């Protein structure tokens, strides 16, 4: 950790009492503004808000002046609708309603210049796996061969999205978008993979398959069939195809062989592009963001990601921690809140049992335990209503005029305290989980996003998330508290 970053983290911690322990703070605006940042990849386990994070980052970068394309894999329907990408045509569409927050004067020139520029644009697209695969075939094979491939039953199943295809096609599409060079920033959402890392493996796996002996075996009957001098090899080969035939059924093997033969000419291209995309991911213009929520499983996956990205030499920018909870009253512990709630509820039960309300003010010990400087309840001269209440409280027997209201207020207050107690338990659980991650990976910078009560499905919501990402501190959604 370098000195200025440490100072930054410390500063942020002092200004806003952290709800989670301080770690390196991930500052996202410089990353988004830096013209040398060309690709941002959001990865993480399913259900942590990856797609929303990708979309919010894309919108923020566009509103700060960059020409951005967001590639999403499987966005929630309403989010897709709000961005106008709910129809699948596999090409980026310009998103309407993007504002110019760049602060620079509007100009047509987007080229050059650092930092904030005017004229940002947001484009978005949703990946259509099958369409992407078809396009590759159409682009790289002559029409006759292309139609043979597209009509092959084996190909049709493969392209419709079995294991690995989605990951591979996402990377393929990323390579295509980058090659077009129409956008100066590409934000990619990764597929909700089984292992969540298949997108890293897909190009390699395909490459090793294409380089492998299996291809030669599959092509054996067609290629080595008649050649003299290959007889010994050929016997081995036909034993293999025999075994494969036995396993797959003769007709499927034939489909596979026809498919492989038809694809043969394209394999070189596949491999070259798979390698190129893999290298692109390692390039300095790429930044990986691991997205997680402060939950055990999500952070365990995140830790795994961090290690895996390091092993693959992929540049990690940091961790985006979504759905972090905060409290404006975090001085009041869960235990004390609960004890106070019980204290408020107690007299009611006593009342029902026979009107003995004498326990009401007994636990004054809580007050003294709080701090030496704790104020004793004193009448507030400016507010007669409060004085009245104070008087009521000081009396053992409830006043005949107000017992009903007072009881409901006490009941409500007890509820508020229980709610707070739950919130504080959640906070400490989140903190423990987060500490475990930080202990394991202290080098990873973290941006926290406060939890929202509901889902995001419009640009205003995405903009809000973007602000929270950049502000990097949990805030209660209620504006009254933030103000």
């Amino acid at each position, binding site marked *: 950790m370098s000195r200025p970053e440490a100072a930054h983290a410390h500063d942020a911690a002092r200004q806003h009492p952290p709800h989670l322990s301080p770690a390196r703070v991930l500052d996202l605006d410089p990353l988004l503004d830096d013209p040398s940042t060309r690709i941002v990849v959001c990865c993480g386990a*399913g*259900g942590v808000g990856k797609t929303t994070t990708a979309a919010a980052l894309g919108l923020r970068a566009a509103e700060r002046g960059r020409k951005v394309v967001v590639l999403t894999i*499987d966005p*929630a329907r*309403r989010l897709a609708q709000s961005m106008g990408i709910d129809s699948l045509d596999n090409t980026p569409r310009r998103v309407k309603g993007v504002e110019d927050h760049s602060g620079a004067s509007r100009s047509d020139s987007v080229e050059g210049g650092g930092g904030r520029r005017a004229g940002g644009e947001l484009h978005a697209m949703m990946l259509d796996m099958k369409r992407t695969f078809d396009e590759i075939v159409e682009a790289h094979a002559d029409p006759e061969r292309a139609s043979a491939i597209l009509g092959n039953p*084996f190909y049709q*199943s*493969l392209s419709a999205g*079995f*294991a*690995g295809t989605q990951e591979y096609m996402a990377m393929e599409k990323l390579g295509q978008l980058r090659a077009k060079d129409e956008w100066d920033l590409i934000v990619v959402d990764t597929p*909700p993979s*089984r*292992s969540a890392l298949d997108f890293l493996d897909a190009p390699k*796996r395909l490459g*090793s*398959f294409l380089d*492998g002996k299996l291809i030669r075996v599959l092509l054996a009957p067609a290629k080595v069939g008649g050649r003299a001098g290959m007889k010994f090899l050929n016997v081995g080969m036909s*034993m*293999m195809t025999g*075994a494969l035939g*036995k*396993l797959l*059924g003769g*007709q*499927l093997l034939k489909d*596979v062989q026809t498919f492989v033969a038809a694809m043969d000419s394209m394999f070189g291209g596949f491999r070259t592009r798979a390698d190129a995309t893999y290298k692109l991911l390692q390039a300095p213009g790429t930044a990986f963001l691991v997205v997680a929520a402060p939950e*055990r*499983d*999500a952070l365990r996956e995140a830790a795994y990601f961090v290690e895996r990205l390091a092993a693959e030499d992929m540049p990690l920018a940091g961790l985006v921690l979504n759905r972090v909870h905060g409290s*404006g*009253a975090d001085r009041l512990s869960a235990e004390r809140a609960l004890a*106070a709630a019980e*204290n408020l509820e107690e007299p009611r039960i006593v009342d029902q049992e026979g009107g003995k309300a004498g326990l*009401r003010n007994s*636990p004054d010990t809580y007050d003294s335990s*709080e701090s030496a400087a704790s104020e*004793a*309840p*004193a009448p*507030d001269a*400016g*507010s007669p209503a409060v004085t009245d*209440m*104070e008087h*009521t*409280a000081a009396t053992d027997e409830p006043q005949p005029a107000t017992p009903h209201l007072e009881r409901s*207020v006490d009941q*409500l207050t007890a*509820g*508020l*305290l229980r709610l*707070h107690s*739950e919130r504080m338990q959640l906070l400490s659980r989140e903190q423990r989980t987060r500490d475990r991650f930080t202990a394991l990976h202290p080098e990873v910078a973290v941006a926290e996003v406060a939890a929202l009560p*509901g*889902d995001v499905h419009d640009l205003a919501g995405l903009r809000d998330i973007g602000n929270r990402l950049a502000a990097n501190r949990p805030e*209660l*959604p*209620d504006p009254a*508290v933030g103000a």
Partner: protein
Amino acid sequence: MSRLQVVSGKGGTGKTTVAAALALALATEGKRTLLVEVEGRQGIAQLFETEALPYEERKIAVAPGGGEVYALAIDPELALLDYLQMFYKMGGAGRALKKLGAIDFATTIAPGLRDVLLTGKACEAVRRKDKSGRFVYDYVVMDAPPTGRITRFLNVNDEVAGLARIGPIHNQAQAVMRVLKSAETAVHMVTLLEEMPVQETADGIAELRAARLPVGRIIVNMVRPEVLDAADLELVRSVPRAAVAKSLSSAGLGGARRGGNAERLVDPLLAQADEYAERHALEHEQRAVLDELGLPVHELPLLAEGMDLAGLYELAGELREQGLS
């Protein structure tokens, strides 16, 4: 009660936890269940706080009343070699295929073969009998792929049976489909009371029904307790701040006057109540959406202490009480 219980749900809803609790609940009173993991994440081992599971059926828990839970993490590659050996005595050829990269190909790239092996292994466990002709496992619970992929995953054998129109794979695929589409199977969906998971649950159920796969129950996980009732939520909008400050003060939380410790708690506590009210309203809407799906809906509580082994037994007890086992 179906003997194969498949548990799916959107990522992050806790489907592994629910699957494990269900396996535990079904094992209660001397039954034996097998909990199957198909996604290679070792989530079951983590949940039961044991070391990573090998590709073998091994006892991981004892249920109340003497039942047993076995667990199996299916490795597709080993399952394929297993399968070759078992059905075709092709151990040697299997090794040769592995050398060629064919096993890797078959289990990762070949369309659906991986899923055929995973579902095939689970169905084999469902049908397996001991020497006396009794089922080895009373129930098999599968921690299945998430909602977005569950229909394709379970239906893969239909697709493969169509691709491979003859041969052992075809027969195997047909046999698996007979189990999956029968009353022997029930597919449960785990969700949270949030918009996206509920929407995915509704979509997933529609897909399962279209593929004529047997849909079981909806299990709402991590349901937060009701802390404020309707009357409280009504009152929270109109209650004088001073009255709350006063009440807090009387509970021993400091002074109620302006700037006093109790008084300063009022705003944040009311803000948290507003948040609660908003979430409460959203949850109410989502419950209504779930109710319209026409399936039994069960709710499991959010465990305040987080998920651990004790919590798992608690959830299993809850499932039993609600009649899921």
